[in-house]
């Protein structure tokens, strides 16, 4: 089998998994910041319970975000050594900044936040969550800088076939960056809001004990989702202009496409420079989902006098539409990434030149091995997430007060 195909498949699988979890991370952390800030400001214990319950789910989700992220990071060197060789001078910089500026602090803060309940002062504990959220956004920003550079290489010059950085500012003002970052972040917020609404809807449908708590989070989730879906659609349509201009071969071909293909044929030889049809299928399906999700606005009037809960049907709808935002984020990435084929760095480095010169056997073993490992862990993670979501907010392990000091010293295994 062709190592290139295997490497691409592996990239697509790992990244899709990574993004499913990361979208939830980014969305939920934003909502959590709101909840915990409200708790610290008002002192209302209802907000503490909300923070603990949603925080618990957030932390469970985080485990796979980290695991898949680490595999992503190594994958560049393992499978795409040509990428580092030819464009590493430019493309590596935002990723290095991301790890040092964002991840390093994010994980340090998160560890302290999880273990800091009942130990740190409230203000410090809240500041840690703010730190987690800000660094999570920073990491999304820098990784989008890197991705946008692959979509539209800028700020470099070629010497002996190797790209060298000339203008870092150009990476930050990349036309394929701004709207895409807004779109990704609001898509994550939409995903987080829908997740919160759907879990709450499940509890309200089942009439589990915590009515007031889940009523509140249903409202927060739906309002967030409605605001976010508008942003998603706005940023989404705003992308067509800049991206279409930077990548004339995307979106079924834009102005200047034929001239560009002629230029490439002269420089890189004849070839098929049209992206696979999958890209357009992804784009169209995502847009359909986006329009459909726009209908959350219709649910908002029902929040009045809890009609949404009394009627039940709107709750059922909220529950069954939960997979849609997840499908949309993957379809969107397929549109973006498949749509830039056959290039790793658009118009600069063909995908085939970026793949590592390792044999197909190793590549296949790696694809199967990591897909099975991450897939199994992701399923286990999803099941634990669902179980904790269903268990309700009675006493989540996160932020549980320590046992009284008088207790015997042995830890008790009956504690969850």
């Amino acid at each position, binding site marked *: 089998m062709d190592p290139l195909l295997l490497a691409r498949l592996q990239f697509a699988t790992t990244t899709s998994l990574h993004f499913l979890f990361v979208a939830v991370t980014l969305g939920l952390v934003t909502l959590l910041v709101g909840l915990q800030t409200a708790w610290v400001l008002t002192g209302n214990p209802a907000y503490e319970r909300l923070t603990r319950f949603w925080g618990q789910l957030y932390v*469970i989700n985080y*485990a*796979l975000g980290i*695991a898949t*992220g*680490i595999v992503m*990071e*190594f994958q*560049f*060197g*393992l*499978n795409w*050594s*040509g*990428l*580092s*060789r030819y464009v*590493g*001078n*430019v493309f*590596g*910089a935002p*990723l*290095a*900044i991301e*790890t*040092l500026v964002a991840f*390093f*602090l*994010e*994980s*340090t803060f998160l*560890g*302290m936040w*999880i*273990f*800091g309940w009942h130990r*740190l002062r409230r203000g410090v504990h809240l500041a840690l969550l703010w730190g987690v959220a800000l660094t999570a956004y920073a990491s999304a920003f820098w990784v989008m800088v890197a991705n946008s550079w692959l979509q539209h290489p800028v700020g470099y010059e070629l010497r002996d076939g190797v790209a*060298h*950085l000339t203008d870092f500012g150009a990476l930050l003002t990349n036309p394929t960056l701004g709207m895409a970052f807004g779109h990704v972040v609001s898509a994550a917020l939409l995903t987080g809001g829908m997740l919160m609404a759907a879990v709450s809807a499940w509890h309200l449908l089942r009439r589990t004990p915590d009515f007031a708590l889940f009523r509140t989070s249903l409202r927060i989730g739906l309002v967030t989702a409605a605001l976010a879906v508008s942003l998603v659609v706005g940023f989404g349509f705003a992308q067509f202009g800049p991206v279409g201009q930077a990548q004339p071969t995307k979106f079924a071909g834009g102005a200047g496409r034929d001239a560009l293909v002629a230029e490439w044929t002269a420089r890189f030889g004849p070839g098929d420079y049209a992206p696979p049809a999958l890209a357009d299928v992804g784009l169209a399906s995502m847009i359909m989902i986006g329009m459909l999700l726009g209908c959350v606005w219709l649910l908002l009037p029902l929040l009045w006098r809890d009609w949404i809960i009394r009627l039940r049907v709107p709750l059922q709808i909220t529950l069954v539409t939960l997979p849609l935002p997840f499908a949309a984020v993957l379809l969107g990435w397929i549109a973006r990434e498949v749509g830039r084929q056959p290039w790793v760095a658009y118009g600069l480095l063909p995908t085939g030149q970026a793949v*590592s*010169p*390792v044999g197909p056997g*190793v590549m296949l073993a*790696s694809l199967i091995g*990591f897909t099975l490992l991450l897939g199994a*862990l992701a399923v286990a*993670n999803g099941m*634990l997430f669902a*179980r*904790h979501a269903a268990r309700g907010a009675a006493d989540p*392990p996160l932020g549980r007060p320590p*046992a009284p*000091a008088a207790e015997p*010293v042995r*830890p*008790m*295994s009956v*504690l*969850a």
Partner: protein
Amino acid sequence: MELAWYALLGLFFAAYLVLGGYDYGVGLLLARGGGPDRRRASLTAVGPFFLGNEVWLVASVGILFGAFPTLEGELLSGFYPVVAAALAGVVAVTVGVQLRSRPTDGRARAAWDRVVVAGSLLAALGWGGLLAGLLQGVPLTAAGHVAGLGHVATPFAAAAGVAMVALVTVHGAIFLTLRLPPTDAAPLARTARRLVAVALAAVALATIAGGLSDRVRAAPQRPLFAVLLPFVLVTALLVARAALARRRPGVAFAATSAALALPVALVGAALWPYTLVSTTDPAASLTVIGGAASGPTLALLGWLTVPLLPALLGFQAMCWWVFRGRTDGRAPVYW
């Protein structure tokens, strides 16, 4: 400037081996039995530091990619199986530790603990093998690519992997001696002392395997540093043993930390000015400068990240300070 970045890369990776090392050591020690309470207490001891330890690896690879892109591509793909094994181990540990306490059922928890044990084993084997692989050189061709992967499967790489497993286990046991309540710490100090003997044997074995390999004899440019390596390890282990006998676990921990950090520095120094020494074509060896990014990239990274280093270290130090001392042996927390 390349040298400064190379030193920073070494510093981050060494710090990862020290900090991640005790995670893996504690992970391996979960296999020693003693029931669910004991396993849970060990994880509580690692508790708040766990997430902050692993990011040293993430940051090392970030520096490797940003500052040494050419080296990154050749190093990781040239040692594919070793790196993939270490990576699978890291992933298993990270998920296992974070999720093992989420199920309430004891059997599911025991299963996750086995994932942590297996992951710790793979990670330690992999990183030990990678350091050994650097010392024995790679078949780098004139085109600048590592040819094939057969070069990694040597007795020396295997022995070094085993030595790394032994080292992190001692290190983990000493960490627990420092962190657990005094009643639980005493038996661990005894375990740690027994493990020192195992580690000494493993280091001796790796030294012999290295001495017998002509590639290991040929690749180092400054053989003195390579020869120093086993002496440093043995000294550190003996110091750790003596310190444990005098009930000074802090000193013992410093000694095993040195045993995990110094190999990185010594391997780097032994190969200097190269990072990958070619066994087939000496002219093809990759120098530190040859593997590095060009000037503007390094300058940019310097301006953006170096001013932040104090903050990075400061927040890590805050974490160690806030959660310093022994766990109190009351209800286990979170992991």
